[in-house]
């Protein structure tokens, strides 16, 4: 290997930045299919459960410019084997409010939308069943959780240990339904050429989408091409196929023309998933020194009538702290709601709110510094799988964070610091997220002049993957970034899983490293280290999980320290400053990584203070289904955020040593805010979001 400055680690500017700023990076809606585009708009059910009794498309069909109206009566039949909400327009049954019951294809989006209003639909409806409660008699234990986690885990005698514990807490936490709301609306543009389908699509991984299209339309994988080079955010809502891809492809087939379907913001509250609400009972038992003797984390959450999605909410509790007796359980209610899906750190995000709030409550009962409580319960090995850690630096994150934040000497007492009208407090919480990687294939070609093309169906949903993968490739090839042309976001490229589970760089990056090694070996051994005049192309593959994943427990960690101010008269909450320190292994791009961690933490503040989809239990819909009423944090809600990471790597996870950074930032963040809120006010808000009125609810004043 030639020695040169490593690009991995540097804060390189986004290579796609100039094109995005100039508006020349084509998102799905802006792609040019090479022919005039027809537009699709949908009619959505206004009931949660029932059957369509009447559906008259004739007035819409008669409107000039309308090309077709698709209904359950005339829509093409899709192949068997599609799950959840993907068999679009295949039946008269309605399973959730917002379900697509008809679709209009027209010359323009305006005509299509106008025609939607001309379609009369009647329903035989039953009352909606949408209220989650731990007292429901129909709660059930799913066979497995998302990502294959076991539904329950029980070690030792939890109830006995809790009863015997000198110190204990028993508290129930609630998180509301949340919606992802990436800024780019889901968009699918479909074009058929004979029996071949091209879909320009906003998704988190073209290969993720291909299979459902193959199943739905009875095609071979070679007949479907999904193209998604630029995606305007996703957070999990674009990981899997949703009705939009099926509808666009169906409609294009019917009208024999390219059809585009861009969701409206409001449709994003019913058609592309949400995070389940959770009700979580936490019980902790400890000895007087604060060593945990028992942990119990029981989760109640919902799923849809037509699809089981079992969020792995209590799984962080299985790894974070030592305790001999432990239990985690998950129970689901099947409700008349749209199918839930993964949303940034599914499981860890709501689960860590509960666990890390409970740890804070325990520290209060013990009269112990909450940082110290966490350090005292640091497990030497994975406490449930009984395996060594690959690397684990949670304690180092806590200690470093405490120092950067100025935690030392913190007064444990709540509600004693004021600055003018502001009650001031500080709080801490840990962060954790699993480190994994997935199968990925890669092709690297070099021409006679030493220019490389790296091809892999990776995905950049705004994370910086374009840049980070190019850095990884340049290092692995021993060249500079300008000599590497990366191609991602196209199902014609070598297979890769989507952007999700913080596995992107671990999977795609590793596949690139392996393939680059092969290429360099061939160059060295067969071509004297120089690219042959006719060029050379090498295919490589990363089979999947790290060989060490079975023998080691692999996770990223972090610690958040937050200052919260609460207006003692109005209950308004501010987060003026925070410090987060991460053990996320190797950081590939210091600049885009900081953005990811900052964004993750900000989303956690947003969860703590603002986000929540309000369900109207009488009519079964989400009341605040737009960005004027579903509040996400604005710039003015985020104060000074100090982001840093430990200089560590995890060689057992992958050859780059990285752990993934897409999700770790949000985990624990809401708990840190809620804990600081308690420290400021003495009030423990256990149901998010912490809105101003809850201050008075807790004071008993309103």
């Amino acid at each position, binding site marked *: 290997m030639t020695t040169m400055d490593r690009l991995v680690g540097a804060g390189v500017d986004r290579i796609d930045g100039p094109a995005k700023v100039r508006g020349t990076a084509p998102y799905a809606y802006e792609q040019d299919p090479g022919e005039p585009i027809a537009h699709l708009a949908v009619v959505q059910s206004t009931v949660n459960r029932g059957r369509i009794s009447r559906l008259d498309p004739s007035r819409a069909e008669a409107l000039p410019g309308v090309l077709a109206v698709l209904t359950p009566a005339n829509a093409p039949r899709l192949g068997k084997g599609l799950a959840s909400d993907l068999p679009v327009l295949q039946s008269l049954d309605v399973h959730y409010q917002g379900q697509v019951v008809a679709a209009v294809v027209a010359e323009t989006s305006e005509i299509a939308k106008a025609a939607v209003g001309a379609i009369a639909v009647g329903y035989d409806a039953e009352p909606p069943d949408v209220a989650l409660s731990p007292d429901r008699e129909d709660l059930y234990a799913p066979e497995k959780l998302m990502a294959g986690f076991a539904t329950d885990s029980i070690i030792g005698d939890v109830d006995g240990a809790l009863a015997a514990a000198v110190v204990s807490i028993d508290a129930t936490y609630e998180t509301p339904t949340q919606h992802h709301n990436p800024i780019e609306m889901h968009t699918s543009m479909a074009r058929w050429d004979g029996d071949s389908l091209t879909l320009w699509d906003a998704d988190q991984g073209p290969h993720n989408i291909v299979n459902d299209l193959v199943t739905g339309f009875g095609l071979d994988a070679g007949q479907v091409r999904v193209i998604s080079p630029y995606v305007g955010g996703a957070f999990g809502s674009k990981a899997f196929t949703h009705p939009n891809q099926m509808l666009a492809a169906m409609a294009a087939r019917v009208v024999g023309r390219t059809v585009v379907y861009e969701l409206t913001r409001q449709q994003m509250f019913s058609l592309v998933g949400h995070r389940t609400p959770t009700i979580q009972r936490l019980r902790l038992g400890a000895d007087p020194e604060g060593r945990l003797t028992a942990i119990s984390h029981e989760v109640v959450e919902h799923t849809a009538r037509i699809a089981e999605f079992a969020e792995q909410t209590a799984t962080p509790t299985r790894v974070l702290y030592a305790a001999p007796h432990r239990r985690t359980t998950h129970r689901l209610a099947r409700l008349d709601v749209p199918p839930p899906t993964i949303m940034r750190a599914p499981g860890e995000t709501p689960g860590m709110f509960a666990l890390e709030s409970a740890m804070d409550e325990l520290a209060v009962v013990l009269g112990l510094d909450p940082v110290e409580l966490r350090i005292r319960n640091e497990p030497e090995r994975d406490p449930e799988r009984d395996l060594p850690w690959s690397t684990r630096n949670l304690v180092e994150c806590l200690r470093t964070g405490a120092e950067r934040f100025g935690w030392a000497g913190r007064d444990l007492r709540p509600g004693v610091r004021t600055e003018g009208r502001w009650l001031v407090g500080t709080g801490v919480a840990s962060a954790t997220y699993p480190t994994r990687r997935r199968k990925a294939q890669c092709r690297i070609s070099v021409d006679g002049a030493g220019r490389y093309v790296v091809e892999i169906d990776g995905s950049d949903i705004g994370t910086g993957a374009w840049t980070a993968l190019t850095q990884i490739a340049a290092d692995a090839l021993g060249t500079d970034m300008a000599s590497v042309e990366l191609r991602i976001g196209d199902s014609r490229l070598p297979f890769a899983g989507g952007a999700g589970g913080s596995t992107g760089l671990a999977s795609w990056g590793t596949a690139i490293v392996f393939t680059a090694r092969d290429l360099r070996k061939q160059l060295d051994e067969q071509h004297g280290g120089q690219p042959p005049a006719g060029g050379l192309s090498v295919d490589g593959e990363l089979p999947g999980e790290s060989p060490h994943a079975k023998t080691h427990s692999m996770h990223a960690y972090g610690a958040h320290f937050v200052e919260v101010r609460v207006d003692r008269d*109005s209950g308004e909450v501010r987060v003026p400053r925070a410090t987060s320190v991460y053990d996320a292994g190797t950081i590939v791009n210091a600049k885009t990584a900081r953005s990811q961690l900052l964004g993750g933490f900000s989303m956690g503040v947003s969860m703590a203070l603002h986000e929540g989809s309000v369900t109207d239990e009488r009519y079964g819909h989400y009341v605040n289904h737009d960005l*004027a009423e579903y509040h996400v*944090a604005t710039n003015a*809600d985020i104060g000074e955020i100090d982001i840093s990471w430990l200089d560590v790597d995890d060689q057992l996870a992958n050859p780059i040593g990285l752990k993934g950074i897409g999700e770790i930032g949000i985990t624990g963040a809401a708990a840190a805010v809620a804990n600081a809120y308690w420290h400021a006010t003495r009030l423990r808000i256990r149901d998010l979001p912490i809105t*101003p009125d809850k201050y008075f609810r807790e004071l008993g004043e309103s």
Partner: protein
Amino acid sequence: MDFLQPTSWADALAVRAERSDAVPIAGGTDVMVDLNFDRRRPGALLDLGRVPELREWTVEDGTGGVGATGGVGGSTVRLGAGVPYSRIIDDLGARLPGLAMAARTVGSPQIRIRGTVGGNLGSASPAGDAHPPLLAAGAVVEVESAARGVRRIPAAEFFTGVKRNALEPDELIAAVLVPEAVGPQQFCKVGTRNAMVIAVSAFACALHPDRRAVGTGIGSAAPTPRRAPEAEEFLAGELESAGLWESRGDLPDGLARAFGERVAAAASPIDDVRGSAAYRRHSLAVMARRSVTWAWAEYQQDLRKAA
């Protein structure tokens, strides 16, 4: 849908009279949302953006007969209906401090560049942020039709119901006549985030030392923006009887709080997604107490003599 673009005020009024199916559009920050949500499908849009008269503000002196609540002998700002919030912030912070404070809290920079007070009045939302300071200042809305000419409607009479106003179908809003501040003014707004937020509740107050009066405006806590007349009279009376207008002495203990309670009592809020009725009342009491405390502190420091 037709897009009508008159280039003079007279033409705009003529079009308004002819096309009853036309919806006027100024900044479009409400109209475009309505169209997008399919809340209305007008036959035409009447674009007011090219009517120069609407984009200006001028100062008129006190003899202009501004209406009962106009400043005695003071000047009045004639604020064209199409002046955007960003210009109010840049140009009118000293003359109309309450309105400028409210303007700073509207939406985002983009919305403040497009959005206008005329549009806020046209929408007449109970949560419109311009309304409380206009009420507190005693502003008058000037409307006009081709057939009947000009009408001047005190802001307090302009709001007739939830998102309803006193405008006749053939009328347009020409301007708002706002007396220039002769005393301190304040605006407060509570939202569930720190920007880009529809107020959970809002409150404006104005001290009018020239006529020894207090102005108030309540937002988002009743079917319409409204004043709190009892609170106004109570505070003005207490200030009068204690000789405080002249002495500029400290507010007696509990006066600001008692004022706040009266302001809260004037509201008739509802529970909704943004907040509970109880919270709205409570926050109004807090905002009223605070804003009058701040306003009074400013009055105490203010060395300029009242008119």
